[in-house]
């Protein structure tokens, strides 16, 4: 995955837009901050999500991270494999560890999200 082709949120979600469907996940930075992941709760297929609103949780032994939807829209698919193979999220957060797919209500909203350099500076400020 070309990380510079993705869009990001300041709460560490990424979005990949292929022109029809948006794939959503959390970044490697989020995974490393949470440490050992134990559980992930994803939205249900068909759910209507609001941009910036919580739609699930990613839980580690020491913390719980709220999963926020980067865009408004409807969930079309969730990554059921994670239930059995949570390690895929830790090992490959931008690949096999994707969380869900959605049809955005307004794809133009993507432009409001962060690009890679802007997201990298968010991470930098948080690691201090």
């Amino acid at each position, binding site marked *: 995955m070309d990380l510079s082709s993705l869009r990001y949120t300041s709460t560490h979600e990424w979005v990949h837009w292929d022109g029809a469907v948006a794939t959503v996940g959390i970044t490697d930075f989020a995974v490393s901050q949470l440490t050992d992941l134990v*559980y992930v*709760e994803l939205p249900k297929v068909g759910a209507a999500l609001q941009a910036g609103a919580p739609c699930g949780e990613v*839980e*580690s*032994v*020491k*913390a*719980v991270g*709220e999963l926020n939807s980067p865009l408004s829209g409807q969930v079309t698919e969730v990554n059921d494999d994670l239930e059995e193979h949570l390690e895929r999220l830790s090992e490959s957060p931008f690949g096999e560890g994707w969380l869900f797919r959605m049809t955005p209500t307004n794809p133009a909203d993507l432009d409001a999200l962060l690009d890679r350099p802007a997201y990298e500076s968010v991470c930098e400020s948080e690691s201090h």
Partner: protein
Amino acid sequence: MAYLFATEDEQRQMLDAIGVDSIEDLFDMIPESIRRQTELELPPALTELELDQRLRTALTSAQASTGVCFMGGGAYDHFIPATVDEICSRGEFYTAYTPYQAEASQGTLQAFFEFQSLIAELTGLDVANASLYEGASALAEAILMAMRCTRREKRVVVAGTLHPEYRQTVQTYLKYLQCELVETETVDGVADWQRATSLINNETAAVVVQHPNFFGCLEDVAEVVAQAHRAGALAIQVFDPSSLGILKRPADYGVDIAVAEGQSLGIPLQYGGPYLGLMACREEFVRRMPGRLIGQTTDNQGRRAFVLNLQTREQHIRRDKATSNICTNQGLMALRAAVYLAQLGPHGFRELGELCCRKANYAAEQLTAAGVGSLAFPRSFFKEFVLNCHRPVAELVERAARAGFQVGPRLSQFPSLHNSLDNCLLIAVTEKRTREEIDLLVAALAG
């Protein structure tokens, strides 16, 4: 006498090591203007011998003896085997704290894991937590949990036959949360679930039934579950653990969350607390559950080990988004319940339920036959019943007391109950009451 060690000499050595002249210097972080120069105004200190004598005097001369207990309403005079007191008076248990360091607390952790397993078995549900404060607040927590599970926050329906203090507790918990608390009608001592259908809508988070209910009567729990699930709400049952040797378990009805007052399981009455809040639920809701959970795992050498589990739900990590503000369990009370259930075993537990039920029915029959009163709700009950008294209720309570018995509570003390019940008494009969005691009570009240 504050259980201190340091002699004057040692104090001096310690102050020297710190580098100050006096203990008072250690308090200079407290601004002068708010530091006290005089002692608190408290009663003079008493030695162990003096307070011992005073207590015994106060409890014998200034206070009537306790009497043989026929009282109910959520706390009962059940038998407590000696082993329960013996185990729970061990300092290794009662002077330990929350098992934060698993290696130093395997005794506590394993005992709580066994407790969770026992409560899950009693209720038939998948998971039980390591306990909550007591019954009424456990119900309030269960309702908050149901709101999280269903993501519905606007409405909760409770049976009108719920213990009035439980309803009040729930009301207080929900007061500032914009959630409407709706109560069903009561007909002949049970909730009218047929007419409740219109109350349970698709904004309802939970439907609550107490079975056996506050009046001792048996509710149609299966119907409650059906109605709740039809609307997408969770069904919560408040149960009586001492009934589960003979009555169906919450899970047999399909209940989602079961809560109870666990005082019946080996905990003394002690004027209302500390008691034991029980909570069990279906597995899918466990991450929304309040309170401590103990889990089994292995240590770095593959040995079985127990730990505080799923702590990320809790206040010390999640803070304002925690499942509850609760940070401990009722450890020692949970231990009492575990020892108690181990003592009774399946056979003792069934005998317990059967004795309570048969003795309570005998007492009801004798009281009504002797003309003391009539059953307010002539239907089957488990171990307590409401007696509609033929004389003023105050007179009967007084007569019972003079003969050495305690009955009640009077229903008039619960303002939320219908005033047609004002001359009624709750009477509970546990396995401890003998036929002779029941007959003497009847004679005292009938005379």
